[in-house]
């Protein structure tokens, strides 16, 4: 038995592990028996007890994630808002202090360099969170784009631990540990305070499709925050969750993963994220001309959700067929733990993206039937 087409290999050899970054929580992961893999230049836990277990914990109770591999870029200065508006496709100036927006940094040709979350911490102070695999590229590119503005970038990626608690019981577990008013903290909001007595930024954001929080603390305090949350959550059934569950959770929630749904060869409109691009905002921004053209002419491909109705699981890179004709490619696919069937996201031709369209996915040289469905696959029930 050998792995033939693994989106992410489950194996990591001890040999290359020594060149990887380790988070401040690495000893905790090892003590929990995590399986560690390389991800974005970091040695990270892919699973502890098992992906299905961890996935269900987040949907039904809550899960604890070490996301210290993410990039934390602080942007500050009199022109910080204008500078970010010129560097990114969104308009962070429209954020009130304490709120966040999903954004992207694009190349002049409109291709996505990374997708980001921008938090407004003060009138001219922002936190930009980038993907681990792109953190250096984004840091360098953003620093260059800020050059002509009165704004400075402080890359605190290697000085920040990020611990997330995600799931319907996250708020009740975190509340007794923090002085931040969680009831008053809306979705996509952030507040400064303490968690377990440690100075922290607490954000109500996540990548799982559930309610939850992301807690930013100084690098060295990461293990204390993790340990406090794990202890506080024990009775509620909170368990440690790895990148494997994070991937299945985000896929069910229809959220893109950089490197799968997003890359330099893809623009935000193709990814169905045109709403993030503020073409009408005051001032120029990198990628505007190219993106305005895409907005006018329409995207060349379209990201869709698919459910495989035949036998098999669609995986990253598998061709999508319309009859005999190749019409697209699967970007992410797995067995959905919540729905109990194989789901996928794929790029297809723009005229083949209507829900209900029957296409097929080529799985090991055989066409297997799949139906286009609306995204997301899973939406949490809103509290009454």
């Amino acid at each position, binding site marked *: *038995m*050998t*792995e*033939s*087409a*693994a*989106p*992410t*290999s*489950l*194996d990591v050899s001890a040999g290359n592990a020594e060149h990887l970054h380790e988070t401040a929580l690495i000893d905790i992961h090892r003590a929990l028996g995590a*399986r560690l893999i390389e991800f974005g230049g970091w040695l990270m836990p*892919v*699973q502890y007890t*098992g*992906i*299905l*277990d961890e*996935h269900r914990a987040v949907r039904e109770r809550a899960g604890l994630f070490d996301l210290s591999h993410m990039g934390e870029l602080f942007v500050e200065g009199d022109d910080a808002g204008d500078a970010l508006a010129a560097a990114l496709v969104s308009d962070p100036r429209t954020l009130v202090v304490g709120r966040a927006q999903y954004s992207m940094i694009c190349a002049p040709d409109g291709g996505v360099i990374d997708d980001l979350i921008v938090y407004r911490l003060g009138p001219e102070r922002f936190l930009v969170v980038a993907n681990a695999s792109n953190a250096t590229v984004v840091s360098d590119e953003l620093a260059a784009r800020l050059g002509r503005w009165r704004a400075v970038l402080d890359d605190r990626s290697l000085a920040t631990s990020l611990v997330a608690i995600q799931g319907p019981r996250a708020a009740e577990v975190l509340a007794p540990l923090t002085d931040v008013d969680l009831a008053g903290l809306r979705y996509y909001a952030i507040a400064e305070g303490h968690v377990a007595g440690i100075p922290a930024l607490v954000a109500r954001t996540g990548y799982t499709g559930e309610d939850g929080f992301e807690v930013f603390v100084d690098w060295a305090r990461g293990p204390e925050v993790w340990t406090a949350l794990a202890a506080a959550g024990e009775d509620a059934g909170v368990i440690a969750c790895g990148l*494997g569950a994070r*991937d*299945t959770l985000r896929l069910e929630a229809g959220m893109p993963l950089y490197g799968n749904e997003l890359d330099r060869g893809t623009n935000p409109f193709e990814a169905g994220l045109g709403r993030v691009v503020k073409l009408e905002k005051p001032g120029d921004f990198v990628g505007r001309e190219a993106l305005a053209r895409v907005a006018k002419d329409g995207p060349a491909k379209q990201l869709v959700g698919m459910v495989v109705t035949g*036998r*098999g*699981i669609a*995986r990253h890179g598998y061709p999508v067929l319309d009859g005999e004709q190749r019409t697209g490619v699967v970007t992410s696919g*797995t*067995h959905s*733990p919540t729905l109990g069937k*194989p789901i996928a996201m794929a790029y297809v031709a723009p005229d083949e993206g209507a829900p209900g369209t029957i296409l097929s996915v080529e799985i*090991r040289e055989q066409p297997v039937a799949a139906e286009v469905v609306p995204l997301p696959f899973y939406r949490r029930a809103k509290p009454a």
Partner: protein
Amino acid sequence: MVPSDLRYTKDHEWVRVDGDTATIGVTDFAASQLGDVVFVDLPAVGKAVEQFATFGVVESVKAVSDLYAPLSGEVLEVNADLGSKPELVNSDPFGDGWMIRVKVGDAAQLGELLDAAGYEKLTAEA
């Protein structure tokens, strides 16, 4: 400890020979490396499998892995339970998680497989 009455491939399949019937599955080591198995694709009854050639695929949440036949032979039976309960591969890899039964073509092929001690040595090094 893996069962001592089985023979093993270096690719983590096992085979149990009973008369001229061989039962084939994957080891507990393989199941644990894979993680939660969610799909198993096996050949139809009547098809021929060849020693050390792929006979099917096992998929966990995250990974796709080929299955290699420990012996050549004709498929007599396929474990139909794995269609609805692929997790049997994780919970009982040497028992209810078996995959296929084949009619043994050439018993001498057993000589090319590892015994339990040899297989344990292999996984200890992995």
